[in-house]
């Protein structure tokens, strides 16, 4: 793995080298940051906490056309693959989430839409130097400079970005940047390590999940589910904004005689999610749904893919309108065990 330095002054040139690819970077202001296409010729500034909506939409768009057809027709047309895209400034937690979700979309058979995008996307990460109040990545297997899922990781060293390629795609990017970069010396490596350590130290919140995956199902009827879900509004904020949530709905939408089958994010927090046409609902209340959300992330997913489906980004905590706090729930779970 080669480590390089990029003088921040050359950042616009570095970005300039990426022309021909679609560039996405966090845009907007303050809290409302989200990944959006970069206007050509601009070099996005990368000073931000994290985007409100995770970059999962780059590989798993909120709405995606699966195929088009004519009503009454017998041919379907699958949309052409997107162009190559580079995501600049992805936080390690979000990149890690993609590595986690890969498991599911690749389980036994590949989801063609997901992986088509996944292949076309290069993730350029940016290590966290100022973790948010509700970040707890370090306790769920990540960290402010986790490289899992990334192609290239940048660390802000003040004057420079410290660049390390993680994958061949990342290497290729470095190669493309060519003479904009300089080799990073050992001192810089140390500086970077120190920075990361400092950053990790700033993370205040954590979950203790030891024994949780095995024990969670045993808490099926624990009163804690009633108490933590009582205030739940049943909205989709936590799941839509969760980088590892990956459930979707499939719908046919018709416009005159043109139609398409598309899929869109869905949320297990919605009552309709499991509702049978007969009216029967195996998860009839917010209690079962909240329980399922936690179980799925901290037990079922672990059971299937041996990894917790939570990267500790803190979005669900930040944006829950009624302060349902997954760290707090995990604390209670732990207590109940």
């Amino acid at each position, binding site marked *: 793995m080669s480590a390089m330095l990029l003088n921040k002054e050359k950042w616009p040139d570095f970005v300039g080298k990426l022309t021909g690819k679609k560039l996405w970077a966090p845009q907007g202001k303050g809290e409302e940051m989200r990944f959006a296409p970069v206007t050509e010729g601009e070099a996005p500034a990368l000073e931000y906490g994290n985007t409100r909506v995770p970059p999962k939409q780059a590989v798993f768009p909120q709405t995606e056309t699966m195929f088009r057809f004519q009503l009454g027709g017998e041919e379907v047309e699958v949309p052409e693959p997107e162009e190559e895209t580079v995501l600049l400034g992805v936080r390690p937690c979000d990149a890690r989430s993609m590595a986690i979700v890969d498991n599911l979309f690749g389980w036994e058979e590949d989801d063609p839409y997901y992986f088509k995008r996944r292949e076309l996307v290069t993730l350029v990460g940016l290590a966290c130097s100022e973790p948010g109040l509700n970040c707890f990545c370090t306790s769920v297997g990540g960290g402010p400079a986790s490289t899992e899922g990334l192609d290239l990781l940048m660390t802000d060293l003040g004057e420079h970005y410290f660049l390390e390629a993680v994958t061949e795609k990342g290497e290729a990017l470095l190669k493309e940047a060519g003479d904009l970069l300089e080799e990073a010396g050992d001192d810089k490596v140390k500086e970077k390590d120190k920075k990361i350590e400092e950053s990790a130290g700033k993370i205040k919140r954590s979950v203790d999940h030891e024994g949780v995956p095995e024990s969670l199902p045993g808490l099926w009827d624990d009163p804690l589910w009633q108490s933590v879900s009582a205030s739940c509004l049943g909205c989709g904020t936590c799941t839509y904004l969760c980088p590892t949530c990956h459930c979707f709905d499939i719908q046919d939408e018709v*416009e*005159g005689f043109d139609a398409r089958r598309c899929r869109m994010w869905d949320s297990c927090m919605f009552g309709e999610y499991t509702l049978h046409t007969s009216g029967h609902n195996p998860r009839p209340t917010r209690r079962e749904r909240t329980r399922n959300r936690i179980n799925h992330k901290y037990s079922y997913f672990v059971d299937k893919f041996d990894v917790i489906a939570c990267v500790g980004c803190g979005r669900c905590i930040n944006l829950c309108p009624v302060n349902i706090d997954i760290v707090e729930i995990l604390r209670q779970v732990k207590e109940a065990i």
Partner: protein
Amino acid sequence: MIEKPKIGVYVCHCGINIASTVDVETVEEYALKLPNVEVARTYSYMCSDPGQALIKEDIKEHGLNRIIVASCSPRMHETTFRKAIQEAGLNPYFLEMANIREQCSWVHQDMEEATAKAKKLVTASVAKVRLLEALESTEVDAEPAALIIGAGIAGIQAALDIADAGFKTYLVEKTPSVGGRMAQLDKTFPTLDCSACILTPKMVDCASHPNIELLTYSEVEEINGFIGNFDVRVRKKARYVDFEKCTGCGDCAKECRVADRFPSEFDEGMGKRSAIYLPFPQAVPAKYTIDPEQCLYLTRGKCGKEPKCQEVCGADAINFEQEDEYVEFKVGAIIVATGFDPFDPSRKPEYGYDDYPNVITGMEMERLVSASGPTGGKVLINNGKEEIEPKEVAFIKCVGSRDESVGNEYCSRVCCMYTAKQAHLIREKLPDANIRIYYMDVRAFGKGYEEFYDRVRRENVRYIRGNPSEIFKRGNKLVVKAEDTLTSTPLEDEVDLVVLGVGLEPRAEMRQVMDLLRLSQSGDRFFLEAHPKLRPVDTATEGVFLAGCCQGPKDIPDTVAQAKGAASSAMIPLARGSVTIDAQVAEVNEATCRGCGFCVEICPYSAIEMVTVNRFGHEIEVAKVNEALCKGCGSCSPACLSDSIQPKSFRDRQILPQIAALGAMK
């Protein structure tokens, strides 16, 4: 809907009415490409027998189950084609019409444009017709009984007719006796029959008719339900006299401690009655009633040592403990015959009705000339000293009629004739009196009326054209100030007696009946009929009919005629034994109804009510449509936030595809 829609599209040439502007063949070809369209055809006149036969054959041959006729307005031929497809075995509601004549070929000249529009309209029809549902108009049993509110001549006549036809009839009268206004009249114009003589037998018939249940001194409190099935609740006010025991001897009234103290309603206040009374000698039923507001015992709790009436009643019929009773019954039709109020001339103070005792109303005049009246039929006035016969008598017509200043623009229709009649009666009794009638116009339009008017004029009754402006007193005389507009002569006419030809007004208490039955008023404030020409006895509430003056001023023959009309209309559902309920009504999806009741508030027909249902163990309130009352307007639907109430054939899921079809086609 289980079956797959198989649509037939029939494009009509309508001779050249459509074909000259719309390229019907192109529309036909186009229609064939639309989803679920199996057959498309054009024909010169779709509505003709061969045109209809074409559709019917296709239904049979191709198994079509949805039909679109692209032709004229559905307002023109929807029924025709519904009937046609029904004859071919299809549900009549599986039809949609595309209006390509009135709203296309006739209003556009450019063939290309008109054809394009016709295609769009057909597309929208296809979008909708696929989703139409089979509707069945339902039959509901009708209770073979009728309720008649008001027992004047209209109510009596209607009741007798319905009862004679064999149906149970409930005749509800607010006052202690049937008879109404007609009972108060002396003679009737133009034939001069004795009013009481022709009415009393009918009153008696009413009381003795096995099919009539007479509920006098009673008021309708509550009516629910709909045509064929009205639930009625009537309050029988306490008479304080045991109805069964009272023999009508009248001893009680004679002995009453406050005997003959109170103005008699029947005599328009000119005669007196006791606190216990019979409204008039021929009253039916001939049972006494205690006026609770006047009876000493009932108002003060004490009447001497013991109430006199109780003391003298040999039948032991007086019962001060009596309470209001309620009776409930079911009827299939209702006739409203609540009559009128005479105009109160106090509202025209220039005529001095409140100030001068010798200014009286026409109704008072009736009692004055009546042999059963307070004066025994003698026309007498009080000149301040004694009762004398008036020498100079003036009538003023149109008092409270045709008069915007009191809010009555209408003609009361009877005043011309009753003043003429009364002039004649006075002439009979006072051959020497000078009688004049102030008038605006004379309307003598009925059978024998003009002849009668002529006769009265020949009897030396002077008609002066001009509405008096004022009546005042000069010495012992009343002065009628007027202008003879024919000669433009101002007059100050000194008379002894003025009779005001007061008009007819809607009953003051009609609001109550309106609310009970959801009736409306027309501009004149009388009850509104369903159609002024073609449905003059019907109301907007099905199964409710109007008879007599509650619908507008009428004379006796017209009242009786209308009563007979109302009776025969009311008897239709009773005789049929059932009523047909239109299928295009609203329907509630109980599963999604959230019970807010917005629809209940909105429905102008009170067709929606909240009912409690058990949803998986929980008692919840949901809306329920009474199909018999619903007219299918659909006003409830947009107010339903959960879209749980929808008019059949105009459901969201039928209209939204129409919108989509029209929007998507550029």
